[in-house]
């Protein structure tokens, strides 16, 4: 149980980082932490105590094995997170070229 609570704590750290930080890069890191926590939680869901890797071979008797589906799913989700992070960093670099700052409160041409 502790491990799940810690995982949700990690998620909250990421959310806090996105909501409270003013630096674009720190916001991106916050999103990274949130995605990491969500993926970690998904993997933990599939974990069985003392389970082995879900690889099937002819001459083996499988007794305890972790759930392979979350692993496959999380792999996809990590790739998505990578794409989002890459795009965010690229946009942040372009914003720095245009505005000369990483401070989100100074990037406010769209008020109204």
């Amino acid at each position, binding site marked *: 149980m502790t491990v799940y609570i810690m995982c949700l704590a990690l998620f909250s750290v990421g959310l806090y980082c996105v909501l409270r930080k003013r630096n674009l890069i720190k916001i991106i890191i916050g999103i990274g932490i949130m995605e990491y926590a969500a993926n970690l939680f*998904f993997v933990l869901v599939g974990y069985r105590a003392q389970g082995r890797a879900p690889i099937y071979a002819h001459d083996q008797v499988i007794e305890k094995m972790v759930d392979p589906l979350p692993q496959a799913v999380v792999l996809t989700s990590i790739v998505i997170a990578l794409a989002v992070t890459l795009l965010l960093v690229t*946009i942040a670099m372009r914003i720095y070229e245009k505005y000369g700052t990483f401070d989100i409160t100074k*990037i406010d041409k769209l008020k109204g």
Partner: protein
Amino acid sequence: MALLPYVVAIPLGAAFLILLVGRRFKASSGVIAVSAVFCVTTLSLRIASMVATGKILCFKMGNWQPPFGIPLVADGLSALMLVIASVVGLLVTIYSVGYIRVYTDRWKYYALMMLMIAGINGVLLTGDIFNLFVCLEIASIATYALVAYGLEDESLEASFKYAVMSSVGSCFILLGIAFLYSFTSTLNMADMASTLVSHRTDKVVYFVSALFMMGFGLKAALVPFHAWLPYAHSASPSPVSAMLSGVSIKVLGIYAIARIFYNVIGITPAVQSVIITFAVLSMITGAVLAFGQKDIKRVFAYSSISQIGFIALGLGISTPLGLTGAIFYLLNHSLFKSLLFLGAGSMERITGTRDLSKMRNVIESSPLTGYATLIGALSISGIPPFGGFWGKLLIIFSCLQAGRPVLAIVAVGVSALTIAYYFKALVPALFGNDAAFRVAGIGGKRITFAMAAPMAVLAVLTAVAGLILLPGTANTLLKGSVAVLSSGIGYAESIFGAIR
């Protein structure tokens, strides 16, 4: 049914083809994009005509029997939404050919547009909740890049804010999926629904509902989560705004909410009251904020928030009449809101500004743009012969029928506000005859045929969309999609029935 994967595969393939050949052969990218979306539109009309006969089409990817593997499913709701999405997508892509002329690296734009359409079609057809998340992310990531496409200060800023908020929403959705998986040990939506039948009052289900409401509410721009929408809609190129407002927020937001809360988790009075609260907040906030805007696209953006509130209200009332109103209004809103955004793009080209206080005489300089925008505005403000009126009327009646007169009064009030802010925004811009503005502005460009034709088609579609309420094929589809939603978690049996 073997047609279904092509609806996703064709735009996806077109995106990669454009990336391969677009840099070398500049003119080819637009041709590939338009022909790909044309194929998708033909296919989706074919699928819809088959679904209208009462069948549910199903395709098992890799021939895995459900609950294993990923099924593609087209029932009434998916088919109707697919037709809306692909028709609007086709017209927007054609419009882009004319509009995107002034930008560089056009092939990247078309590739991203194709990815967005592929993602949206994937969300509509999939029967697997994680696959829904993946397609949703494909569509969203393509949209972040499309919003930033102009590379102006504003579009970069809008794109960053949209991407951050939307990613937070996606994290909540992923977390919700993880909880649901740990609870039901399946990712197939139909299987999940049949497992959840006996657990509808468990605490986990409430927690998951809250997570999904945050995640999909953010994608739908319901009010506590609406902050990204005015940025993203006003700063992106006009065809992208039209796609975002006409298709994206409805498919990624409203469709996903409807599918998951009605067909998978099962609608409860608690969820209903949450949807209604968000809907009323959206309606009022959007309408009030639309008043103070000077930028024409921001007026339309806030109006989108307000009209999404109407759709969500019909969904939250969840009587058959309310659902009919919600889906009918959704269909109409797709047509006239994309028409309005395309019109805004043309008006920007003609007058060289998006500022309403500097925009005059549009009808005189381009009658087609002016009258098309006028038809859209008349329909959205609920002037009787147009579809927007009947949609609002159905939603208001459903409130009265469900014994919620306060909601009906709010809806009537917001409709009146809608007329007022559209009148205030558009009448001076369209009809204002001010000699001082005649030569002002750096615009003065003529709109091309590629821009004019989609607007004309959309204007005609908007004008006749009210006729769907009369008996006919389209009406059968509308009834079919309402039946899917009102059957609730009976969805599971009908899907398994169709597969086996």
